[in-house]
């Protein structure tokens, strides 16, 4: 199981090559890449920051849960931090197993869950300034403040 936060270019080929073993028949890979536009505005670049120790722990727990829940053999999850240019990979998730169905399901679940609860934030830089991406709402059980506004 490879779970990492990195600051350099993510090498998809090396990660998937390292993941595969003889009994695998399928690897499904999700490659999240920096788009040239955000909500209709032209993006110059992005900057990702994380609560690093916590993000690593959360990612490791998600990988464990994916293996247990979907019965896949192994998972690699690598997120890049710092400044990323258009077209670069921000997140790579690779899931290997003997059969393909579970690799698709686990990979999809991992990216969907990561985007809701792994503490990583994205700042978007435009020609006329920067904004923090709005983010996905936390699952209700993680959000501290009740909807009427008092903790």
């Amino acid at each position: 199981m490879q779970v990492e936060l990195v600051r350099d270019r993510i090498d998809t080929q090396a990660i998937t090559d390292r993941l595969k073993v003889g009994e695998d028949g399928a690897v499904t890979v999700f490659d999240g890449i920096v788009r040239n536009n955000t909500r209709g505005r032209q993006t110059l670049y992005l900057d990702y920051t994380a609560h690093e120790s916590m993000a690593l722990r959360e990612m490791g727990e998600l990988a464990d849960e994916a293996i247990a829940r979907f019965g896949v053999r192994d998972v690699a999850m690598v997120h890049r931090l710092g400044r990323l240019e258009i077209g670069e990979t921000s997140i790579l998730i690779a899931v290997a197993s003997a059969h393909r169905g579970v690799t698709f399901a686990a990979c999809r679940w991992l990216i969907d869950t990561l985007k809701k609860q792994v503490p990583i934030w994205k700042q978007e830089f435009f020609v006329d300034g920067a904004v923090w991406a709005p983010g996905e709402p936390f699952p209700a059980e993680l959000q501290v403040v009740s909807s009427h506004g008092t903790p």
Partner: protein
Amino acid sequence: MAACQNRYAYGMRLRVLFFGVLRDRFGQEEQLQQFPGHTVADLLRYYRAVAPELDQLWGTLAVAVNQQYAAASLQLQQDDEVALLPPVSGGAGCVRKHAG
């Protein structure tokens, strides 16, 4: 007697980390030397009173204590690391179009 009921009667020392949009207002972190409250909810109320202008953001946060998501009722301890977390936006470039 008060000291027996609460080891930190004069407040406890906390390391508070800020992330995402909260960094624009509070910086990366601060050390609270004598936080007078007891729970995660108390700490959130404290910062909310400092920056009420952040408004709806306060209703969307999660809090981690020592790298674990924490409930509002969690009792804080001396030297805890508390992180205030706005909705996360890691992963791919494809955020659904909802209001910021």
